[in-house]
């Protein structure tokens, strides 16, 4: 029954199932229970707002939260690697970096899709938050390319850790950009910190963040295990090669 051997464990199966159930509940709340964003102008009485396009934010905002978190985990693990020099830290950095890059791509995609009806543009070159997020994505894409550039994962670990520690500095820049360059961005200021959200809308957003966290944890866990096995296979390959060479030498 070797074919059913996987990187799953009892814990990760529970995590996966919880994520799946959470996602279904989130979709139900986001699409069918919460209200669309409709306001009435006090003077003209006309209705206006994002209408149902607001439902994209229950996905976009949680993706941003987990992207930040994944990259912070990557940076912490990278620092851990530079101190401890163990494969555990490097694998964790690699896993979090890869998952963060994926969610960062989704942030850009969902942001663009939301932007078309709400901002009236798919993409705004020069918007500091959009651009600094794009730079973050490209930096971590570079991080992954750097890791792939080395045949030996051990040789890639140190330069990759340094790149991750530099790249993560972009996060506070992205986060504060709406305050620092208010007239260079279409992004609104933080809704959560000013508590301009309440009731079911707030609950759904929080649930979205929780579900995204669970999914991210599941992905990182499995990516970590894959990295671990890749490393074990690599080490095994070296051992086998050495043994083969010894045999050849003995035969000589």
């Amino acid at each position, binding site marked *: *029954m*070797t*074919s*059913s*051997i*996987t*990187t*799953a*464990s*009892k814990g*990760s199966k529970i995590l996966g199932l919880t994520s799946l159930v959470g*996602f279904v509940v989130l*979709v139900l709340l986001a*699409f069918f229970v919460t209200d*669309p964003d409709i306001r009435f102008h006090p003077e003209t009485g006309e209705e206006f707002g994002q*209408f*149902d*396009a607001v*439902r*994209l934010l229950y*996905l*976009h905002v949680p*993706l941003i939260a987990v992207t930040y978190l994944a990259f912070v985990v990557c940076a912490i693990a990278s620092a851990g690697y530079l101190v401890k020099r163990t494969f555990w830290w490097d694998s964790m950095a690699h896993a979090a970096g890869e998952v963060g890059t*994926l969610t960062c*791509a*989704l942030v850009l*995609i*969902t942001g663009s*899709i*939301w932007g*078309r*009806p709400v901002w009236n543009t798919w993409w705004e070159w020069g918007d500091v938050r959009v651009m600094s997020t794009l730079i973050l994505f490209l930096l971590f894409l570079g991080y992954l390319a750097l890791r792939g550039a080395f045949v030996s994962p051990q040789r890639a670990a140190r330069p990759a850790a340094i790149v991750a520690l530099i790249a993560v500095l972009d996060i506070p820049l992205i986060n504060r950009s709406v305050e620092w360059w208010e007239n260079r961005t279409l992004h609104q200021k933080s809704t959560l910190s000013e508590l301009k959200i309440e009731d079911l809308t707030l609950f759904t957003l929080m649930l979205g963040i929780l579900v995204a966290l669970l*999914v991210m944890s*599941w*992905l990182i866990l*499995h*990516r970590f*295990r*894959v990295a*671990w*096995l*890749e490393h*074990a*296979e690599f080490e*095994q390959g070296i051992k086998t090669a050495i043994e083969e060479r010894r045999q050849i030498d003995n035969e000589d």
Partner: protein
Amino acid sequence: MTHLGYLLAGWGLSSFIVLLYAFRLIKRGAQLSKRVPSEHARWISSPKQNSG
């Protein structure tokens, strides 16, 4: 529902990409698990091990 196309594109594409990535991870993990001795992966589970 307004903006249905945008909603389906955003939610659909994101779900699809994450699922595809998760599936790839499981597949790669299963491939590697077969090749690497189980002592390197203490989380490895198989029906044989579970029942034993």
